[in-house]
């Protein structure tokens, strides 16, 4: 990857963004209204993710029932055609994917008010149609939107974003070329607060740079939250208008 100029002296990145700019962020909810109780379709740059939420419903297995609270189940399906080169194996039981699922469950477990839906199961499916770096953040955003569409009570939004560190410059919302060329940090931020629900660093970063990276990341995640909020409000207004015109 050394042939590519990740960050030009003029301050432009590979795809023409500046260091603190997000990728194109488009989302819609209630996209699969007959297949699920809540759904969303999210495009974050070239990441394309469909999320379906089914529930709260009666668990199919007795062992999936908890008398105190709802059980949250998240399965991530990374399609074989999601990258430029088609992968040979299905990613279903890869440890990396299992780890992602566990991290997502533990992130949303603390944010969804599970205690008000005892003896039920909330089943979330995420399908990754295309991936281009920072996929974990997109998964978080997709799930947040779908849960809201399903009307499941949550304390706040969780918004996810990845930040790379190129030499000493933090780059917001990395794509896959950037992700492969440098170390990156993934954040899951709760609402408009500075609280992190998820924090993953997988490569080396100098300890003293971490704080600036986190600060940029939190600002970026707040922007993502606002974009999601805007779309949700637009959608809600449309629905209200439809309902009142009938």
């Amino acid at each position, binding site marked *: 990857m050394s042939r590519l100029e990740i960050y030009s002296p003029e301050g432009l990145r590979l795809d023409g963004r500046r260091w603190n700019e997000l990728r194109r962020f488009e989302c819609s909810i209630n996209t699969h209204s007959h297949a699920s109780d809540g759904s969303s379709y999210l495009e974050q740059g070239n990441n394309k993710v469909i999320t379906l939420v089914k529930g709260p419903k009666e668990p199919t297995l007795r062992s999936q029932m908890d008398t105190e609270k709802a059980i949250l189940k998240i399965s991530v399906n990374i399609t074989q055609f999601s990258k430029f080169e088609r992968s040979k194996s299905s990613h279903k039981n890869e*440890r990396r994917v299992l780890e992602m699922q566990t991290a997502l*469950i533990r*992130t949303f477990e603390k*944010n969804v008010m599970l205690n008000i839906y005892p003896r039920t199961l909330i089943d979330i499916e995420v399908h990754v149609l295309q991936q281009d770096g920072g996929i974990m953040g997109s998964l978080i955003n997709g799930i947040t939107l779908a849960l809201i569409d399903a009307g499941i009570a949550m304390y*706040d939004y969780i918004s996810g974003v990845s930040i790379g560190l190129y030499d000493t410059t933090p780059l917001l919302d990395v794509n896959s070329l950037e992700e492969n060329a440098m170390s990156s940090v993934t954040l899951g931020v709760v609402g408009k607060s500075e609280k992190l629900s998820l924090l993953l*660093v997988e490569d080396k970063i100098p300890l003293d740079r971490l704080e600036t990276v986190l600060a940029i990341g939190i600002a970026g995640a707040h922007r993502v939250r606002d974009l999601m909020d805007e779309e949700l409000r637009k959608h809600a207004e449309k629905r209200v208008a439809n309902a009142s015109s009938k």
Partner: protein
Amino acid sequence: MAKDIEISNSESKFLLEALRQNYRLDGRLFDQFRDVEVTFGNEYGDVTVKMGDTRVHCRISCQISQPYEDRPFEGLFLISTENSPMAGPQFENGNNTDEDEILCARIIEKAVRRSGALDIEGLCIVAGSKCWAVRADVHFLNCDGGFIDASCIAVMAGLIHFKKPDITVHGEQVIIHPIEEREPTPLGILHIPICVTFSFFNPKETEENIKGESNEEITVIDATLKEELLRDGVLTVTLNKNREVVQVSKAGGLPMDALSLMSCCHKAYSITEKVTDQIVQAVKEDYKSRNKYSELLSSENAR
């Protein structure tokens, strides 16, 4: 079969109330790491690490193998972290699909293997056809919390301590010299990652944690098994002595303020420094006790 261990209501109330009053059941301070005890066996790369009641054994072994086709200049390195019922009845033999076990295996993998702690290019013998395959087998003997921290220390101490047999290469032919015949060579260690795990407890209601401004969550370093069972969130930070963050994993759990997470990282650094020195010192002392008579044999004299 063996179910997840459950903790009684009264015991959990007692533990949490004690935490609220600034006490831990084993009398440690909140930011006190348990004392680490590293002991070596007879052979190179045979390490037992004890932290309180937690006990982890690691065995490093090597053999000659063929490198991957797309990486002809690199040797192979594998870390195996399999649980057995020895560590406690909550573990099942050969079943490593449990959430915690996957997280533990992945964190050690990222901390040691992905971060390049072992110089795998130095394991190449004949490019494209022969290389050393180094294997670290981690055995969990007794579980009282802190498996990730203990096994990372065990793997790193094992890798530093291990020596592979010396070899001579004649074209495609390789002669392995048994360790009795020629002094074996140590592995190339590029840095020493140390994992430090923080556990978070929420003394108030969930709403206060998410909406509140007070940040009164309790942070505890190096939790014991009981604390692990009751915690609301966990953060594992891996650092090395060069002030590099190797890996951070906070996979969900209790939302925490970014600044308090940063202060955790800084606390972890001082522990990393201490533990790194301790490992290096322990290996040095073990080598010394092995070569008690080497001074007599050496040709140096006190001129």
